């Protein structure tokens, strides 16, 4: 067989180096070509990761046993010999960027698997890569300042589940630098500046939201094949909104990144919520920020255990102190109380407006007040049980007004009572006591001190003079906790107390619980998990929107934004894609047939979404932990896979 010359560029030799020419015959297999190539290059190094890339056809020649003839390669083929793993700049859900060595030759599905293994994210099938939104042309300076965490040197472990070392995967524990990266991955980021939120891209309309989904990479092809180059930027995001088997114990990174994605979705108004919901989201963010800063280790210890420990300690102390008489013991066991002069105002009763001063005693879950301290041993003027009440702040730090507004349920309705405190100190402890009492807890509850603390820090946030901030970690601009719409709508003075109000419901949560709560509320939003694509239904003359969710398809009228129709997957008989006319056809039970062509996204993306969700739904039944990759490709692959 006639030998001919095949020239191959070797990437490692540099872009300017001339291609190496080897003499081959058509029945030589790819492996042989590589061997010749390596010999001729006379470079001694590990070439095992290298493979041939066929530039014109945009495809890898990975089957080394195939002959050149079988591959259809002739002398004019522009081949490049390059490593299969190359660095990539990866944008994480939390907004930070990693530099990571990833596989450019395997399917994107595989690549994501590798990335997730590296980052210690379980259930990688829920994530995928997408091209970032082109940023508006900013000043060069900012681009340079963008921090990049380099993980390209970190060796990939071969074990299926990385062993933990110091609470992090062993490959992160190698150096302080990588440890820092892991912390960045597993601990949520501090709140962004409100200006930064405003500057980022907001999808303004349904169509904008739909456009985001046109950016997903094709899971069944490789990065190179999709035109992604070395050091390009891609985003790693949760793509399928059904999070299987979330286990805080193992999912530190997954949980954190999920939270970050949710947080940004809310801050950027990618998903709509009501004002009350936004305030609650803000409160939980505040709580999470605070906890992440103060106790980054909480992820590992469960709150229940802490409680138990402290309870045991408490008991020990009590038993140790048992040489005192039983009577003393009993006294020790009685609940602590608060005693002070406060002013009370009951809007209903008093005709002459004004606060009257009394001696107040807070014990268990009720407030009693007396004419004076001296009379506090006798019968109180009134005793108010606070269980089930609502305690709202009525505070103006600048005006030195520290009032607690109590709405106390009674058989006849709610009684409104105002308590006025003298100063911040007094207010913090009484407010904390009221809060606990409203939940039926007494002052003896372990959360009392932390409640006092959080009220103080919220007061600090309202201080008009920013220079007086002493505790930096606590001072967070509440505007950075809500989306720009609410930032514009409310002044800090208005926003802070409302977030504080919402905060009282979540202040007791541990970091993990707070993250989970945030995710739960996010998932409970009506619009949660809907990925939008603009489509044109067969027989229709206008564009409409197709919403793809974990369990159904939604047809949405583009003009009104109303749901026109929903189809559930479990009524779906089959779906087909006509790749020639790029049309998706779906048949449902009861002879319901729909067909549409996709306007904003490729129909492969829509196909992959539907197939992907069906794949996700098969997971719960399959108890095994192993990922059925074959099934995934079968459901999402399209004609190339068959």
């Amino acid at each position: 067989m006639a030998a001919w010359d095949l020239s191959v560029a070797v990437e490692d030799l540099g872009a300017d180096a001339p291609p190496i020419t080897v003499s081959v015959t058509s029945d030589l297999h790819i492996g042989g070509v590589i061997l010749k190539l390596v010999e001729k290059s006379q470079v001694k190094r590990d070439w095992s990761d290298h493979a041939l890339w066929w530039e014109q056809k945009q495809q890898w020649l990975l089957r080394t046993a195939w002959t050149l003839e079988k591959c259809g390669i002739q002398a004019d083929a522009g081949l490049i010999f390059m490593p299969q793993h190359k660095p990539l700049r990866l944008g994480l859900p939390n907004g930070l960027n990693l530099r990571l060595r990833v596989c450019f030759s395997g399917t994107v599905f595989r690549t994501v698997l590798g990335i997730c293994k590296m980052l210690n994210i379980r259930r990688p099938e829920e994530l995928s890569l997408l091209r970032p939104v082109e940023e508006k042309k900013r000043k060069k300076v900012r681009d340079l300042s963008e921090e990049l965490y380099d993980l390209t040197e970190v060796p990939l472990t071969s074990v299926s589940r990385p062993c933990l070392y110091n609470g992090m995967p062993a490959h992160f524990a190698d150096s302080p630098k990588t440890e820092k990266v892991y912390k960045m991955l597993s601990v949520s980021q501090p709140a962004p500046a409100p200006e930064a939120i405003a500057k980022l891209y907001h999808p303004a309309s349904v169509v904008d939201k739909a456009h985001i989904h046109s950016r997903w990479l094709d899971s069944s092809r490789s990065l190179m094949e999709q035109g992604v180059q070395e050091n390009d930027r891609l985003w790693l995001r949760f793509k399928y909104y059904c999070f299987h088997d979330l286990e805080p114990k193992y999912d530190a990174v997954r949980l954190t990144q999920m939270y970050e994605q949710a947080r940004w979705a809310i801050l950027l108004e990618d998903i709509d919520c009501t004002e009350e919901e936004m305030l609650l989201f803000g409160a939980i963010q505040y709580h999470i920020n605070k906890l992440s800063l103060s106790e980054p280790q909480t992820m590992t210890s469960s709150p229940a255990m802490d409680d138990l420990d402290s309870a045991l300690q408490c008991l020990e102390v009590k038993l140790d102190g048992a040489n005192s008489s039983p009577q003393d013991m009993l006294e020790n066991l009685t609940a602590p109380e608060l005693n002070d002069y406060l002013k009370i105002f009951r809007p209903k009763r008093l005709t002459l407006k004004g606060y009257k001063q009394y001696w107040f005693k807070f014990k268990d879950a009720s407030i009693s007040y007396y004419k004076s301290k001296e009379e506090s041993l006798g019968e109180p003027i009134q005793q108010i049980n606070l269980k089930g009440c609502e305690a709202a702040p009525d505070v103006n730090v600048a005006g030195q007004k520290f009032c607690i507004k109590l709405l106390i349920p009674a058989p006849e309705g709610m009684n409104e009572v105002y308590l006025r405190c003298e100063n911040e100190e007094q207010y913090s402890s009484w407010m904390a006591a009221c809060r606990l009492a409203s939940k039926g807890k007494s002052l003896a509850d372990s959360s009392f001190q932390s409640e006092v603390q959080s009220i103080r820090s919220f007061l600090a946030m309202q201080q008009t003079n920013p220079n007086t901030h002493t505790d930096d970690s606590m001072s967070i601009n509440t505007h950075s906790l809500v989306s720009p719409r609410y930032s514009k709508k409310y002044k800090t003075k208005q926003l802070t107390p409302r977030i504080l109000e919402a905060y009282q419901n979540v202040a007791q949560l541990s970091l993990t619980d707070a993250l989970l709560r945030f995710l739960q509320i996010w998932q409970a939003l009506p619009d949660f998990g809907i990925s939008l694509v603009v489509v044109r239904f067969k027989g229709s003359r206008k564009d409409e929107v197709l919403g793809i969710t974990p369990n159904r398809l939604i047809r949405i009228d583009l003009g009104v934004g109303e749901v026109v129709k929903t189809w559930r997957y479990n009524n779906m008989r089959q779906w087909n894609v006509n790749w020639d006319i790029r049309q998706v056809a779906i048949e449902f039970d009861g002879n319901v047939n729909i067909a549409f062509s996709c306007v904003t996204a490729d129909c492969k993306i829509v196909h992959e979404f539907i197939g992907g969700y069906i794949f996700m739904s098969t997971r719960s039944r399959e108890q095994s932990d192993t990922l059925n990759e074959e099934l995934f490709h079968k459901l999402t692959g399209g004609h190339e896979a068959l």
Partner: protein
Amino acid sequence: MDDIDAMFSDLLGEMDLLTQSLGVETLPPEPPSSSSKEMNFSMGFADMNVESLNELEENDLDALMADLMADLNDTEEKLGGQKEAEAPHTDLPPASHGFSFYPESSLSTPTSPERGPNTFSAPLADSPAPILSPPTLPQHAKLSMEEIEAQMKADKIKLALEKLKEAKVKKLVVKVVMHDGSSKTLMVDERQTVRDVLDNLFEKTHCDCNVDWSLSETNPELQLERGFEEHENLVDPLSAWTRDSENKVLFQERPDKYEVFKNPQNFYLWKKDKKTIKDMKDRDKELLVEENFCGTSIIVPDLEGVLYLREDGKKSWKQRLFLLRASGIYYVPKGKSKTSRDLVCFVQFDNVNVYYGKEFKNKYKAPTDFCFVLKHPQIQKESQYIKYLCCDDAWTMNLWVTGIRIAKYGKSLYENYKTSMKKAAITTAWTNRTAGTTSIPSTPSPTTKAKASGQANGHAPQPPAEPVAKVGNAPPPPPPMLPTQILPPPPPDPVLPPPPPPLANKKSPPATSVPRQLPSLPTSFPPSPTSMANLPPPPPSLSQDDSSESPPDFLPPPPPTLGFGPGAGSLPPPPPVSFLPPPPPDPGFPLPPPPPDPAFCPVTNRDSLPAPPPRQSNIGAGAPPPPPPPPSASAGLQSTPSVRRTGPPPPKRTTPPLAAPGGGDFMSELAKAMAKKRGNQ
């Protein structure tokens, strides 16, 4: 209600006395106890000639007694358990202790029982302090070990803590109106959930225990009604009632309670056409429940619709477009869109409950009678803080009320449902079993039998847990005492009440419930004792430690078991009242009552072997009694953790009931005995 309060305080005093006297009889070991106990009970009641008490029906009193006893036993058992845990450390001679409770009293000298009752009744005494003081130091001087003193101190403290806790526990006497208009009175303490109380009522009424049974409160003044959720503590909402309240607690079937789990499509696919909803396949229903309740977050049905809102203060009702979200109910303000950002929050669910309104058309001139109300549970009278909403039809009202409950209670609702289902399934199985037993022709006294097993079943939930646990905790007691030990809490019921009505009740349910349960019956001959034996013991969750501990306690005393073992097995117990009660409490939880006893006999005493075979031939239609080989025993042992689904193959027929308790050494004993028996044949 206010006189009930008074009554209760009277009653408590009486109970106190009564229990003190009772304590002497029930708790200390007295050989002839079973007969003397009965006597004591009648004595006790004869003494109680207080007026207030007379107002209560006898049955109520029994019930209250049972509750009280259960309470007492509860604390006592806790203390006993603690004691037990301490004891090994110091190697204390048991009799030396002033605060010796259960375990010691059973071992110790005749004097210690006298002390016992005092301490037992203490939790109900007003001031725990005096009891703390009795210094038993003189006794200890003999031993004069510092350790002991330290021990004593710790004991005292624990006792004090326990009593403090007990003294703080709020208890209410609640009159529950039954579905037939009659009423029952029971005591509820603040730790009991509605589920507990329902179990209690199931036991007392012998109803079919289906998932629809519920407790609800009515407020006649506001014309409201609300079904309690099963995870709520019953005492909480009741404490909100005013003293002169005419509110009632009802025990009734409410189909709306768990409708959302039976027909989720009605709530989650309400927008779809009626036909699709009606023709929903069971599989799809399950899927819907799974989707909405089993994920990381509970999904609230996305309700929206025009409802009438009663304007504050005014008499008019105004229409508004309302939307339900997980975070609350919202409405669309005039001229605004339905998008989330424009919605105005109408109410959030943290501090309010949802109630059905009754006949609001009359009361408030509502457009329809299909109204629901949101209010703080404490509000009992007309107030501007109550929110009234009115729907076009009953269907819409149900949709909203259920949707609000899902939003408010979330996962608990589903958990409650699952618990109810389990409970119902077990009960149905037991009812089947009862029906089966009654139909066996060879049973001489079917009624008594049915009654006994019914009680065993009814007792399953709570109180009985104590006796079993106690046996486990106690050091092996002298043989003759055993029956006495098991007895204490249940007797009041078995001995006195079982009246005809429950029986009549019970006859009807099987007809409806049998078919539903059939699929879960593992074998083809359902009504025989064999299949019952194959069924899981009623409450499998009942502390497995206890059940594993109890068999060893059973083993040592051969004479007594033998005494009534065959009697219970062949079922003609001549003195039914005094003897039948004992079996249910003990085997009821770890093992189904009748079969085990004969089966026990071969283990302990092979002389009684003749007893089982005839039974087997009865059942097995002439099949030769296959002597279960040792391996089957071990297989049974393995099956214990997952009692539920194990469908034992026929040859094991006689073993499963034995296998159930699953004590390791016990099993090997059994295996040995079986092997021996085989060898003999």
